[in-house]
């Protein structure tokens, strides 16, 4: 049995400890905001925060999460007003939007650690997150916008 929290709520998993967090969230907990893209840590679509650090939910066995605090897109803010979420809306970043939960979680982790990121910081932090629609220019702009918003 493994106990941990998701978005502040207590969760308990009695099943296969090897089950990746992604499928626990989506299939068992009904939190479908975290998406599947590759199942191999190659695309970042499933990015969540584990104790505040960005992590790929498709690679994290639930059995290893005892005592951890998981944050998903549903729990990033109570009202959708995290500066990254606001900036994403202001700049109409999304096209299909499917990868954006992962992008937003990764960007939130970046800004928590590096409040005023350079272009190189953004490249480094966001390079694991694929977008097939090609929203990268707006992702970059929105991160910079969020950094300004948080600063002021």
């Amino acid at each position, binding site marked *: 049995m493994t106990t941990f929290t998701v978005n502040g709520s207590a969760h308990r998993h009695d099943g296969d400890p090897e089950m990746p967090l992604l499928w626990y969230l989506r299939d*068992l907990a009904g939190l479908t*905001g975290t998406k599947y893209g590759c199942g191999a840590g*190659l695309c970042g679509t499933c990015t969540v925060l584990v104790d505040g650090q960005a992590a790929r939910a498709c690679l994290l066995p639930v059995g290893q999460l005892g005592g951890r605090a998981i944050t*998903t897109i549903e729990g990033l803010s109570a009202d959708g007003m995290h500066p990254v979420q606001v900036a*994403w809306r202001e700049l109409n970043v999304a096209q299909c939007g499917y990868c954006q*939960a992962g992008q937003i979680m990764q960007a939130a982790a970046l800004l928590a650690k590096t409040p005023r990121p350079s272009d190189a910081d953004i490249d480094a932090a966001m390079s694991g997150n694929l977008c*097939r629609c*090609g929203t990268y220019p707006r*992702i970059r702009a929105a991160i910079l916008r969020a950094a300004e918003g948080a600063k002021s």
Partner: protein
Amino acid sequence: MNAHLANDIANEIANLSLSRRGFLRGLAAGSFVLATGIGPARAQEAKEAKKYAGEAMSGGLRDDPRIFLTIEDDGTVSLLCHRAEMGQGVRTSWAMVVADELEAELARVVVAQAPGDEARYGNQNTDGSRSMRHHFQALRRIGAAARRMLEEEAAARWNVPVAQVRGERHEVVHAASGRRLGFGALARGAAQRPVPAADALVFKTPAQFRYIGRDGIGLVDNLDITTGKAVYGADARIEGMAYAVVARPPVYGGKLKRYDASRAVRVPGVLQVVVIDPTPIPSAFQPLGGVAVIAENTYAAIKGRSLLDIEWDDGPNAGYDSARYRETLEAAAGQPGKVVRNNGDADAAMARAARRVDATYYIPHLAQAPMEPPTATARVTAELCEVWCSVQAPEAIRSDLSKRFKLPLDKVVVHPLLLGGGFGRKSKPDFASEAAILSRAMNGRPVKLMFTREDDLQNGFLHTVSVERLQAGLDAQGRAQAWLHRTVAPTIQSIFMPGAKQEGAFELAMGAVDMPFAIPDVRVENPAAEAHTRLGWFRSVSNIPHAFAVQSFAAELAAAAGRDPRDYLLELLGPDRVIDPASMSDAWLYGEDPKRYAYDTARLRGVIERVAQEAGWGRSLPPGHGLGIAAHRSFVTYAAVVVEVAVGARGKLTIPRVDIALDCGAVINPDRVRAQLEGAVIQGISLATVGEISFKAGRVEQSNFHNYPVTRIGAAPKQIHTHLVTPTGFDAPLGGVGEPGLPPVAPALANAIFAATGKRIRRLPIGDQLA
């Protein structure tokens, strides 16, 4: 092949023999009464008149506001969007148009998604950059008719002539008396009024538009997308559902020989292992067959599948090998093929040319790889089949499943959810059929069927592979006098027609036969090519290889002539003229009327000049940098691109800047047009630099994003500048937007690399060719 599928394909392929259903609906736009009142002779005459655009599509166009609009007592306007949202912004753009003509406040409009039902909503096949192009005027009619009904209701209540009232910002106003009533208060009465005839509607002038053409309007789905509440096809949660993945034949046309599921069924959570029968090839949009593992969760299903022991009979395509196939295509390109366009005498002109240039280009298979792989959830009982999924063509699912389960069409219900990308992959309903087959096998328990990324790449509907051979004869001044293009590529038609080996009219007219250069002697040939895998539409389709070859070759000719590539491209284009499609043997024009949409070379020149100016063509560049230019018309829209590259030590390629100019006619939602162009630039760079699906022993060699890479943020241009050519008005026919930006990107990139390094790229992807 069932009737709907045939109709759908007919529209894609556009060898339209008009169905009676399409004919009636086409005439009926706005008036069923008229259609029934037609006499036999007139009906015959009308039947013979060719239909184009939305009216030629299966299901036709509908513009009855009662179908698409409801207004609540509190004034909330609900718009039913019957086209698929896959990132092009259709839900937002449609709300803008309807709200504008309705005089509704956009903030008080909610957008709901219509179920699949073409008899009710008209055509729903979201493909071919068609949604706004076909529906703009119909959406205006919907909004204007509903406004008129609200105005009539208010005028009746006030007992004043309707001419004295007008809809204004969610109210109807009687200026003379200062009376006003909100849309909510008028809605019930207005709904009882007859729908005004289309010719009685009064539309806004462009100066009166509040949303149409306005930049920076927020997406209707923004809040849901940024908070994780948006529901994509993969996110459907149906009470009691099980989860499934399928092991499919690794070779197209392969069959299950033997399998052992004894280890798979011991995985905790695995419920059942089900064999899906293969569809004989060519298998159209039907399932490939294989072995499904159904479980209580996705993890158990995937783990169970990994423990299946399967032996396949690979069938006739077991020898498909991309390296050898490339040689086959090149050999075919060295021999004469079926002549698909012929002007003058290209051989004679070539023979007398002062100089001949000859180049062969190779463009590999590509996978659409939407970030959300195909996923569908189905619940199938003896009486009812329901499907929830991300799909570009819901009616194709209904029609397939109705036939498969012998259910009437109204007992097959398709709920389209948001698409996590489509790019052509989700116009094929195979995955919905698989989900339905498995639900039936589970006695009606709902089943969510998911393609893993490996399945998506290895069992997809790939973009074709092609060799394009170009030859030109130049005169002593370097001017092109003769043009010979041999395009060799397996055709998408091969998934429907056994033995199809020639490109269809719809493929040839994507940049091969509709080559616009003012060259006197032109021949385009299409040597045969046999398909060995399952092909399908990929964003921009055959425009990708054709534009890459033609626009790379234009720059090669400029180099041969010692001329500036932009100047030479404009000279090739020649004097401004509207080209008669017949003179290009262009039998297909994206389903559009050739009279309305004939090739206007001035518009291509316009985007070339605009993009060159904006990009600073001719400016001095740092060492190792180069500019390349390319232009292409597709989906009846004109696009031109300038790419700036920097090639560093050991051939390291970076792309600091891309400029793209588009003339798609009037621009309805500028922010989404720009977004589509930004995306097209990046997807174009992705396929040009790293995109390749290859085969060995009949099997796809790539399995996931480590060996089928797509461009990441660091490799994307830091600057993408989009330039929308100023519209001349909103009555001119619209062009497509989703696809036309992509084709010129790869050749502009290759041309920039040539400018920077002198190295000519003739094979995609570029990969390590610069090292």
